[in-house]
């Protein structure tokens, strides 16, 4: 057979064989006998490809893109016979230095490929970099030959998810984790049995895109601790997994290791959601480094002021120009890549409201990027979740442009449940909305638009929420000025850790109260890694910079607080066993199937007579099992009573249909193991008409 004529070199430059490249896909792609490089710049005047031996400071060769290798604004070239496994590559761009017009071209800078699938330079977490390296974040080639066998995204219906927000390194870095290589994708893989036993079916990974943990690193003024970019909300490469999270990062095998983790999570019916940060990059403002976009086409990639400075809607120095068509294409390509190559099940978008701003920063009523993601065929089954606000003051909880697809982190659920459990006044009506999946916010979108949570990485842990009235962020080196001030927390009588048994009992009860309400609310529950074992950050509500034991999951807590862990395991199992808790559509508060009971009914200390007044601290609701999933599923009846008063209260229980009895499932005022009963083991309630709820407690009954 005659070989294809379009795979032969047509040009030569200093011994390297070349031909005009394929314009798409962007980035570096392995092609027969060579590598195709394609990169966009609208305002550059020329572009040069640099090839390096792995890790070398000096390039092997600088190959200019010939004029005939550029079509439109895309430079594309195929280089033949490259030892691609041992090559780093980068670009040098020429163009105007006119900051006032948005152009910051500098041909002394070596720039990483925006589409680099692997980035080297921070291969081992915490290894001090060579600050003088001329090309610190180095693009590398990847071979997509992972053996997925029959794996594909799990596609669990969103209403059935129980999300576990976690930090890859923090999950197993603690010595007590006992895994083979701590703080890695592989360490997380070893702990999958724990996630299975907890009962969560979706892990939301805080950023795993390549970032630089040394960005803005400094010594703490109060200790010798090196403060780092631990969370990773500052992207260096959108297509590259964090090498420092891989035990095999030193081999450049982070792609395979992450894929292996995802494959094994999928085998255990656990979805993987990535926390993605498209609102800004690690290049910062005009004083920041050149990594990629700034030197390739600053004016295209960033939102700039009329004077050419960076708008800072992200609070981190710059704002990616997400609704520029070029940047939209980058974001879409990126998400498609993770969905197709890594079988990722969904995405949570950090400060997603920025994605709805136009090229001048103004909010759009119909943001093309959000619409495009919602209707994309490859992302069609992916969960799309917005953090529906930004640092520029745009707050869109309840109004984020959804296109029938987008869900939101429900910040109002967080605030309401925090205030409710500590007994704030005038909250019962609001809490009823949150429990129903926030129909006041998501009337047409249904409860699945609401990601319900009490705590996330940003803010107090659940243990700290009930142990501190104020934030204690002094260790962050910002004079305690960072982090939120409106935490709606309550220390239960003492600020911080205490030996007082009554206070500690109340705190653990409050944690159980939160878990009980969260798991019986319509919508999608999310819990923060470590909350199930009482993890404390010692009152710090902004732990972005601490790579320390205070931030890591302490596995000894699984034994010390085994009772709490047991409670979480059972309450999650309870939710997953009862479809009446997981409706796709809003409850109607009416009986539309003739069961004699509304789908949800509201009660107080008196059955059928809730006290909606401002001073009310008692609320109860009953879910009719015959209405589960719009009447399509049969379930038990469920009654949940909540007493946020500082004293015990009697609750009158609504009567069940003839022949059915109430069974005790949860009573958070009881000591373990009577605080929660395993499915099927719930004892019949001796007194079927009334029940006494201890102060600050929740009871869940099952009627069958």
């Amino acid at each position, binding site marked *: 057979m005659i070989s294809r004529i379009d795979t032969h070199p047509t040009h030569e430059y200093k011994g390297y064989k070349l031909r005009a490249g394929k314009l798409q896909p962007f980035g570096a792609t392995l092609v027969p006998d060579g590598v195709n490089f394609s990169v966009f710049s609208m305002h550059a005047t020329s572009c040069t490809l640099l090839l390096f031996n792995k890790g070398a400071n000096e390039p092997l060769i600088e190959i200019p893109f010939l004029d005939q290798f550029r079509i439109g604004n895309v430079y594309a070239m195929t280089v033949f016979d490259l030892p691609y*496994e041992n090559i780093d590559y980068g670009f040098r761009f020429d163009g105007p230095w006119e900051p006032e017009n948005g152009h910051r071209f500098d041909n002394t800078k070596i720039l990483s490929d925006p589409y680099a699938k692997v980035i080297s330079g921070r291969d081992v977490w915490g290894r001090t970099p060579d600050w003088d390296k001329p090309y610190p974040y180095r693009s590398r080639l990847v071979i997509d030959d992972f053996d997925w066998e029959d794996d594909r995204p799990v596609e669990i219906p969103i209403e059935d998810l129980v999300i576990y927000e976690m930090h890859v390194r923090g999950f197993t870095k603690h010595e007590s984790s006992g895994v083979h290589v701590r703080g890695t994708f592989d360490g997380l893989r070893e702990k999958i049995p724990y996630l299975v036993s907890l009962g969560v079916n979706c892990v939301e990974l805080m950023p795993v895109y390549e970032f630089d943990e040394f960005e803005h690193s400094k010594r703490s003024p109060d200790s010798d601790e090196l403060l780092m970019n631990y969370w990773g909300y500052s992207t260096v490469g959108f297509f590259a997994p964090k090498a420092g999270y891989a035990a095999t990062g030193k081999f450049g095998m982070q792609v395979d290791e992450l894929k292996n983790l995802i494959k094994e999570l999928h085998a255990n019916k656990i979805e993987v959601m990535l926390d993605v940060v498209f609102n800004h990059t690690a290049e910062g403002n005009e004083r920041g480094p050149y990594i990629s976009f700034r030197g390739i086409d600053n004016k295209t990639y960033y939102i700039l002021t009329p004077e050419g400075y960076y708008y800072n809607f992200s609070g981190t120095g710059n704002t990616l120009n997400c609704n520029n068509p070029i940047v939209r294409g980058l974001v879409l390509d990126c998400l498609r890549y993770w969905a197709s190559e890594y079988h990722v099940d969904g995405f949570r978008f950090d400060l997603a409201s920025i994605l709805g701003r136009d090229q001048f920063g103004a909010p759009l009523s119909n943001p093309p990027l959000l619409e495009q993601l919602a209707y994309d065929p490859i992302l069609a089954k992916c969960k799309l979740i917005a953090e529906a606000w930004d640092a520029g003051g745009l707050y869109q909880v309840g109004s984020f442009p959804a296109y029938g697809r987008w869900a939101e982190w429900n910040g109002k659920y967080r605030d309401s449940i925090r205030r409710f459990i500590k007994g704030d006044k005038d909250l019962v009506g609001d809490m009823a909305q949150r429990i129903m999946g926030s129909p006041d916010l998501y009337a047409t979108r249904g409860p699945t638009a609401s990601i319900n949570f009490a705590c996330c990485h940003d803010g107090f842990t659940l243990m700290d929420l009930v142990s501190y009235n104020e934030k204690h962020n002094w260790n962050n080196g910002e004079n305690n000025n960072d982090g939120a001030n409106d935490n709606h927390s309550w220390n239960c009588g003492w600020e911080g850790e205490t030996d007082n048994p009554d206070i500690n009992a109340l705190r653990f009860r409050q944690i159980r109260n939160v878990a009980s309400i969260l798991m019986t609310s319509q919508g999608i529950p999310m819990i923060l890694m470590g909350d199930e074992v009482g993890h404390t950050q010692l009152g710090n509500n902004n732990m972005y910079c601490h790579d320390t034991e205070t931030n890591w999951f302490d596995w000894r807590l699984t034994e010390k607080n085994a009772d709490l862990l047991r409670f979480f395991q059972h309450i999650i199992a309870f939710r997953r066993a009862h479809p009446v808790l997981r409706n796709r559509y809003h409850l109607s508060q009416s009986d539309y199937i003739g069961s004699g009971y509304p789908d949800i009914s509201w009660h107080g200390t008196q059955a059928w007579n809730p006290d909606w007044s401002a001073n009310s601290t008692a609320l109860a609701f009953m879910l009719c099992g015959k209405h589960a999933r719009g009447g399509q599923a049969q379930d038990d009846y469920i009654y949940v009573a909540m007493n946020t008063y500082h004293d015990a209260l009697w609750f009158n229980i609504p009567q069940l249909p003839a022949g059915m009895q109430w069974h005790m499932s949860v009573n958070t005022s009881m000591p373990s193991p009577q605080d929660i009963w395993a499915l099927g083991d719930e004892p019949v309630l001796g007194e079927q008409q009334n029940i006494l709820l201890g102060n600050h407690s929740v009871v869940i009954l099952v009627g069958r």
Partner: protein
Amino acid sequence: MAFESTLEMSNGVAKITLSGELDAGSAPQFKSTVEEAAGQGAKRIALIVPDLEYISSAGLRVLVFARQKMGKGIDIYLIGAQDQILDPIKQSGLLHSLYTAETYDASTIETV
């Protein structure tokens, strides 16, 4: 220690013995040996590696190549791997594609 690879056919099993450091420089030699084994119609491949001291990403890639070159019907055994060899294989997910054993047991492996 310099890398060496040898191939020996035994009852349809290609016994490939590797020693030394399998890195980017030596990976092509290993790859050639795998191709030679495929050319001789191996029904199984046994990689005898107790003396293999180091494996780089390029070496790991040849294992992927071997898996794909031989096809799903042909088992690949990894015999006597030290931890520093086995760990990256496990962490990168390649272990799914291989069988491991501490010693070469002809009664098991050569039952093709």
